[in-house]
């Protein structure tokens, strides 16, 4: 680690001699991966916070420039392993927008269904990991129980359980069948019946409330300044959601709400995630009801990326995901930029946790629901 210098590599000021550095990570239970945070500690108070990235860097953007656009499909699922399908969706939609391809309606519905299922799975992962950060080990396993059903269902149509590669330019690679529809309805019913249990076990628990309320408060102004999106922004009270504000796919046809918080503290962010589960379930239900017949794949001729640029934003599980592509006429992207939500959410951390207890730092960081490989890419 010696080669990486930080802002706090040494403490020079003699007045600050009683402060000391604490390396949190890259191997630490609360950083969910290989994030390293250098903390300048004064007792148990973190006075300076410096997140250091790059331990899980895999050059996804460079890889996109080195291969045909179709070769980037498997990468999209590996950027954010928690919620992979929105990434898949965003990339396909980007190419479709660039090449002007119309997607069959059934394919769009299937996309929405899988994306929302994946969003639920991702929120279960994020919330469960957050509760583990607070010290309770059991809720995540109940949530994984539900998540497992979703993964099973998704495996049935996408073929994999975590790094999906299901959406294709022009449609989806595999149609859904009646078994899947039946199964998904059962999953919706099951998850609905478990909300009450989560309320009693986690949300209502006084220790949980004390640990999360008034911890890591993000005012709307601050969230906007850092470009935070997703549940982090919505927890602060601003109901910004790409699905509503900049509708894509078939989302305008569904009736769903954007849950928002009030105080912007960790508890609100947690609650927004829990309420979004219900909204996702509603979307899936409506999509299953309205599911039209037809092909799931459009006729796609050879796609050349025209000179010029194009971008497409989707609402991933953790916030706004934007793909920005510059083409040069060949079928290899000249440049692909991915704007991931976790990156801007992480950049909040320093201002958010300055001068807070290390326990609050863990709580606030967990509530941002970061996926570190997504930040490193």
């Amino acid at each position, binding site marked *: 680690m010696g080669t990486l210098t930080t802002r706090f590599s040494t403490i020079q000021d003699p007045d600050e001699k009683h402060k000391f550095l604490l390396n949190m990570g890259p191997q630490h239970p609360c950083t969910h991966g290989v994030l390293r945070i250098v903390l300048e500690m004064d007792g148990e*108070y973190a006075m300076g916070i410096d997140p250091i990235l790059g331990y899980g860097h895999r050059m996804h953007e460079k890889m996109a420039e080195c291969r045909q656009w179709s070769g980037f499909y498997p990468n999209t699922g590996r950027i954010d392993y928690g919620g992979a399908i929105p990434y898949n969706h965003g990339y396909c939609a980007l190419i479709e927008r660039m090449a002007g391809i119309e997607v069959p309606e059934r394919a769009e519905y299937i996309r929405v269904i899988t994306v929302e299922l994946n969003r639920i799975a991702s929120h279960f992962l994020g919330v469960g990991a957050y509760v583990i950060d607070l010290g309770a080990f059991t809720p995540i396993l109940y949530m994984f129980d539900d998540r497992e059903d979703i993964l099973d269902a998704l495996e049935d149509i996408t073929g994999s359980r975590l790094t999906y590669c299901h959406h294709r330019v022009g449609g989806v690679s595999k149609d859904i069948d009646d078994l899947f529809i039946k199964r998904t309805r059962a999953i919706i019913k099951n998850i609905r019946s478990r909300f009450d249990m989560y309320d009693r076990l986690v949300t209502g628990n006084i220790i949980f409330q004390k640990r999360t309320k008034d911890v890591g408060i993000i005012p709307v102004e601050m969230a906007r300044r850092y470009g935070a999106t997703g549940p982090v922004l919505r927890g602060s009270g601003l109901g910004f959601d790409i699905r509503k504000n900049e509708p894509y796919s078939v989302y305008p046809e569904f009736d769903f709400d954007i849950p928002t918080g009030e105080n912007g503290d960790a508890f609100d962010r947690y609650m927004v995630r829990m309420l979004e589960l219900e909204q996702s379930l509603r979307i899936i239900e409506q999509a299953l009801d309205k599911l039209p017949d037809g092909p799931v794949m459009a006729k796609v001729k050879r796609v050349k990326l025209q000179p010029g640029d194009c971008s497409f934003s989707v609402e991933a599980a953790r916030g706004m995901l934007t793909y920005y592509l510059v083409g040069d006429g060949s079928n290899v992207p000249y440049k692909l930029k991915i704007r991931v939500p976790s990156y801007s959410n992480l950049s909040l951390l320093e201002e958010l946790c300055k001068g807070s207890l290390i326990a609050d730092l863990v709580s606030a960081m967990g509530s941002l629901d970061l996926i570190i490989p997504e930040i490193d890419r």
Partner: protein
Amino acid sequence: MIDYYQIVAQIMFVAFILLTIIGALLSVNAKILMHSVLGLAVCLLGVAGLYFYLGSMFLSLMQIMIYVGAVCIVLVFGIMVGFTPNESAQKNDIGRNTLLGIVASGIAGLGLVITIFGKTSWETSAATVGDFSIEWIGENLLLKYCLAFELISVILLIAIVGAIILAKGGREEGL
């Protein structure tokens, strides 16, 4: 048969004395501040054992509870909070006042030992009234020696308030 038990008891007695002496020496000579407090803890444990021989189990337990369990821990706490991890391993400076220390403590100790052996002949009282049970202490503490009880309560109260004020003032300044 009783001799056998006596031997064991005497060996343990010597062990306690050695514990006290070693602990005391360690606590003043240790190069690391933490070792010094640990030496104090060892010494206090030894003294607790001696209290046992002096017939008061209650006091020896109190010694462990208050001295080792509270005072020493507060000291260690002070070291760990007040000094950064690097500094708490700092060496005690040796040598500045060593000669003065040896002379002063030598004179004081010698004077005491001379007093013990030379000047006074202690009369051992033959019969002691009462037993060493805690009921006895408790009764005396609340009736006969009530003032000591009241005094210590007041002192502890003042200490708590003072400690809180001192420690809190520092924190507000720091933040």
